[in-house]
């Protein structure tokens, strides 16, 4: 088992959410929820800024896994939860670690935290290695 044994840390992904990318994500997913682009509205719900979409948290977690994995395999299963909001101005850090490994698969635990160490989105991915990578 040469590829990414248990304990392997994935390269960290740093994310600085911008209003422009939130707007573009709303547009491309046809999401009209004002909380993602209307600051006065977001303030009425008590938030300090417009909110990063839950799906965008998931995208950054998945991108972290696939950037690390490269051509060594493909993601078979993936999940995440939205635990804490993020807004433009936050600095988000996505980390990952291999927690289970067998010949053909690796399970990766993921976490997106903000600059205060608060977990915004934990996640988990199971990747299946290519035949070449799984060969003993």
């Amino acid at each position, binding site marked *: 088992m040469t590829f990414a044994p248990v304990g392997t840390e994935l390269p960290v992904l740093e994310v600085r959410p911008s209003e422009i990318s939130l707007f573009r994500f709303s547009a491309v997913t*046809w*999401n009209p929820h004002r909380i993602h682009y209307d600051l006065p509205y977001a303030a009425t719900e008590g938030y300090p800024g417009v909110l990063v979409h839950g799906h965008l948290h998931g*995208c*950054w977690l998945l*991108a972290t896994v696939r950037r690390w994995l490269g051509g060594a395999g*493909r993601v078979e299963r993936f999940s995440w939860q939205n635990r804490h909001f993020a807004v433009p101005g936050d600095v988000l850090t996505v980390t990952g670690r291999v927690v289970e490994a067998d010949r053909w698969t690796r399970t990766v635990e993921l976490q997106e935290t903000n600059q205060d160490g608060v977990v915004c989105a934990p996640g988990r991915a199971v990747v299946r290695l290519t035949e070449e990578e799984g060969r003993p």
Partner: protein
Amino acid sequence: MSDQARIHEVWTAARSRLGATRRVELGRIGQQQLDRFAVAVDGSVADDVVGLAAPLFLSSVLVWDNGPLERDLLPDGNAADPFSGFDVAGLRLMAGGQELTFHRDLEAGALVSLDIALAGAELKTTANGPLLVLTVQRTYSDEDGPLSECRETFLGREALS
């Protein structure tokens, strides 16, 4: 009607829709849709991650048709009937997360259909008041079979007055 009565009303309506599956034809997925999604995901990231979140494109799109006219949207901008079958006006809905299985990669040009069902509706008591947890099950397929399956959770609380 109190907010708590409203959340119970939505919960009751949701339970009546449990398990009912409907099919939606999403049409052909264009390269430009995938490219724009990639650019939006990459915009906040220092490193280049263009295209790496592509497997989440299908389950990230909230509405596939034109959606309601603007005058028919709720005050928060959302559609009143996002799950086709019951009105969620009076609640604040937030995405809770997804669990996905990816069977095959989505390719531009694929003719995609969606089978969607409400799989769960639970009303929980929390320190911040009642919380409605809705679970939606989706299967995306193209001409060659299933592409991905997604189980998504939505969290509903009473709207602020």
